[in-house]
C-alpha cells in the first residue's frame, strides 16, 4: 500500500520537555487517519511537524514518498487547532488570498462550490468579523481545501460546532476521502473517530500508544464489556460485583451500566447472578468502544500506560 506520509523515529523536544518521542507512523494514501490523545499529548506538535512549521530534532518525515520540500505546502491543506482569520477581510477575498498563497487553480469557482456546500454562499461578500464562530470555522476549513490539495490535515475540525454544522463538516471530510484525498484529523470526539476513521493513532505523553484499524485495536482489548439494563440498576450490580470474581469495573450511565470483566471471568456467571436478584432487560457482550480504550489509557488504572498497542 502506498503511503502519503511516513514518519520514522521522530523526536521533538521543547527544552527539557519531550513533546514527541521516537514516533513512527505510516499514513496510507486515500485513508482517513484519526489522531487521538489527551490535551498536551503531542498531537498538534506532530501535525505542525508534518506541515514543516516546526522541525523535528531527530528522525525523518517523508511526504508523498520524498523528503519534505517547501513546495509540498501547496499540496497540503491545513486547518490549525486555533483558528486564525483576518477579521477585516471579506470571506471571498480571504479565500482567494489563502488560495493564491498555495498557488491554487480555479480558486474562485472552488470557493463558490465549497461555500455553497457548507451553506455560506450568502456570506461571500461579508467581513469575517460578522461571522459566527461556527461559520468562521467552516470558512477556515474551506481555506484549507480550496486549492484541492492531495493531503488534508485538520487539527480538531469538529470542536465547537453544533450538531448541524458537525454533520456538514463530516460530509465535507467524507467527500474529500471519496475524491481520493488523504485526510488526517485530530479529535477528542471518540464517536466521530470511531465512525469515520479508517485508522486510529493515539499518542499519550509524546509516545504512540495505539495505531491501526479500529477493529484491530479493539481485538487487542478483547470482548470484555457487558452492557446491562436491569430493574435494580447500580445497586444490584454492586452486589453482583461482590459475588462474582473478575468484575474489574462498573461504569454507570444512569439508564445503562457497562461492566468490564477480566479475561478469566465468565459472563454467564454475571448473568446468573443478575437474574437471581432482579429483572434483566438487556445483557449485551461487546468489544470496548474507542472511548473506553482512550479512557483506559489516558486515565490509567492498570498497566496499559506506555504500552504500544500496535495493531496495524
Amino acid at each position, binding site marked *: 500500500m502506498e503511503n502519503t506520509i511516513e514518519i520514522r523515529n521522530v523526536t521533538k523536544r521543547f527544552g527539557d520537555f519531550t513533546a514527541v518521542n521516537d514516533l513512527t507512523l505510516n499514513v496510507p494514501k486515500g485513508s482517513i487517519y484519526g489522531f487521538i490523545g489527551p490535551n498536551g499529548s503531542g498531537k498538534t506538535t506532530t501535525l*505542525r511537524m508534518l506541515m514543516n512549521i516546526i522541525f523535528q530534532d531527530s528522525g525523518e518525515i517523508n511526504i508523498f514518498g520524498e523528503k519534505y520540500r*517547501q513546495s509540498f*505546502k501547496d499540496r497540503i491543506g491545513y486547518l*490549525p487547532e486555533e483558528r*486564525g482569520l*483576518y477579521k477585516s477581510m471579506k470571506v471571498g477575498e480571504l479565500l482567494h488570498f489563502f488560495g493564491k*498563497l498555495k498557488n491554487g487553480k480555479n480558486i474562485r469557482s472552488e470557493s463558490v462550490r465549497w461555500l455553497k456546500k457548507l451553506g455560506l454562499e450568502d456570506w461571500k461578500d461579508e467581513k469575517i468579523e460578522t461571522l459566527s464562530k461556527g461559520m468562521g470555522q467552516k470558512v477556515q476549513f474551506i*481555506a*484549507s481545501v480550496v486549492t484541492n490539495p492531495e493531503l488534508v490535515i485538520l487539527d480538531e475540525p469538529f470542536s465547537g460546532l453544533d450538531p448541524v454544522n458537525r454533520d456538514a463538516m463530516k460530509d465535507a471530510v467524507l467527500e474529500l476521502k471519496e475524491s481520493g484525498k488523504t485526510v488526517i484529523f485530530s479529535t477528542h470526539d471518540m464517536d466521530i473517530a470511531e465512525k469515520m476513521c479508517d485508522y486510529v493513532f493515539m499518542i499519550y505523553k509524546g509516545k504512540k500508544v495505539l495505531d491501526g484499524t479500529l477493529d484491530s485495536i479493539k481485538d487487542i482489548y478483547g470482548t470484555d464489556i457487558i452492557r446491562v439494563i436491569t430493574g435494580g440498576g447500580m445497586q444490584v450490580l454492586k452486589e453482583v460485583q461482590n459475588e462474582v470474581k473478575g468484575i474489574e469495573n462498573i461504569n454507570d450511565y444512569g439508564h445503562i451500566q457497562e461492566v468490564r470483566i477480566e479475561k478469566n471471568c465468565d459472563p454467564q456467571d454475571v448473568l446468573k447472578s443478575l437474574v437471581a436478584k432482579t429483572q434483566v432487560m438487556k445483557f449485551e457482550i461487546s468489544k470496548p468502544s474507542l472511548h473506553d480504550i482512550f479512557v483506559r489509557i489516558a486515565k490509567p488504572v492498570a498497566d496499559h500506560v506506555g504500552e504500544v498497542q500496535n495493531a496495524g
Partner: protein
Amino acid sequence: MRDKIKTITVREYKATVRTKTFLISMILVPVMMFAGIIIMKLFEDNVDTTDKNITIIDRSGIVAERLVAIAEERNKSEVFEKKDNGELKKVKPNYLFHIVQPDDENPDKQRYELSEKVRKKQIFSFVEIGKNVLHPQPAEDGSDFSSVIRYYAEGAALDDIRRWLGNPLNNELRQLRMKEAGIDPAQVTELMRWVSVNGMGLYSIDLATGEYIEARESSEGEAILAPMAMMMIMFILSILGAQPLLNSTMEEKSQKISEVILGSCSTFDFMMGKILGGVGASLSAALVYVGGGVIALRYMGRSDLIPLELIPWFFAYATLLITMMGAIMAALGSTCSTAKEAQSLAFPGMLPMVVPMMIWFMIVREPLSNFSVIASLIPPLTPMLMLLRQSTPYHIPAWQPWTGLIGVILFTLFSVWASARIFRIGILSSGKAPKLGTIIKWIFRND
C-alpha cells in the same frame, strides 16, 4: 519576486493603505509636524498691543529722562501702522516709562514693593539703572549692582522690552561718554557705520552655455527648513510603513493567523511579504509628499528650491530605512503576544529614527564636522542623517553618501537576516515575551 511573497505583500499593502489610520496619518502627521511653523507664520503679527507701564529707578540720575524721551519717539513712530485704506492700526504696545526716586536707604524694600506692583498688574515691569553705569566699576559692597542695568518682570528672559532697552540706554551712555571726552558724536556715528555681511551661496557654471550662474543669497529656508523637511518626511514614512508592522505581526500571532499562513509558506516569505507591503505603503505616501512638495514649490515660483539631485538618494535611503525598520518591527512583533508587550518594544525599535531627531540641529549647523560625518556613517542612522547633510547648502564629499549607502545596504541585509531568525521562532512561541538575551540567542541558534 516569489509568488508567495508577492501575495502577502499585496495583502499587507492593501491592509495598510485602506485603513482610516493610514489615510488620516498621511494627512495629519505632516500637518501636526509643521503646525508649529505654520502657526508661528500665521500669528507672527499677532502681538499683544496693550500699553506697557514701566517704572525706572535711575540711580545714576543721567539717563532716565532721556529714556522717557526716546520711548515717546518710539511710541509716535512705531506703534501705529497706516493701512491701505488710510486707517491707523495699532501694531505694537506703547512703552510708558515712569521715573521714581531711588530709595538709597532701603533699596531691597523698594525692589520688593515694585515687584508686588508687577504681580498685581499695576505696572508691567521696572528697570533699575546702576549708579556707575556711565563708568562701570566694581561696587564698594562687592556686588556689581551699581554698574549694570537690571530689568525686572514676570517673563524677563523673553521680554521684548528688555531686548529694546539695550540699544537706547547704551546709545545714550555712549553719547554722554563722548561728550565727556570732547568728541563730536555725529562724527563718530559716521566713523562707526556698520556694513552688513550678506550670506551667499556659491557661483556655478552652466555646462551647456558656459555662462556663470550667479550665487543666490542664502536663506534660512534653505539652510534649516529644507533639511528638516527631508528628515521629517523620512520619519513620517517610517511611522506609516514600518511601525505598523509591530502591531500587525503581534495581532497575527495572537489571533493565530500566522500559523495558517505558515501552513502555506515559509517564515521568511511571510516576513518579507509583510516588510515589502510596508515599504510599498510608505513609498506611496512618499510619492504623495514629494509630488505635492514639487507642485507646491513650482506654484510658489520657487522651483529653484527643489533638490532634484537629492530625490534619487531620498528614495534609496527611504526604501532601505523602511526595509530595515520593518524587519526590526516585524521581528519584535513576533516576540509579543499582547498589545502591552508590543507597546513596550515600540520605543527601542524606533531608536534609529528617534536619535536623528535628537541631534539633527547639530548636524545641520555643522554638517562637515567630525561628529556629523561619523554619526551619518553609522548605518542605522545613515538614511536620515546623511540625507540631512546632503540637503544642507554645504558640499558633502561624494565618498560619504556612497559609503553610507553601502553601509546601509549591508546593515539592512543583516537586519532582515537577523529578524528572520527571530521571527521564525518568535511567531510560534507562546507565553511571556522573551528577554533581550533570549532574542539575541535566537539569532545565532543553529537548528
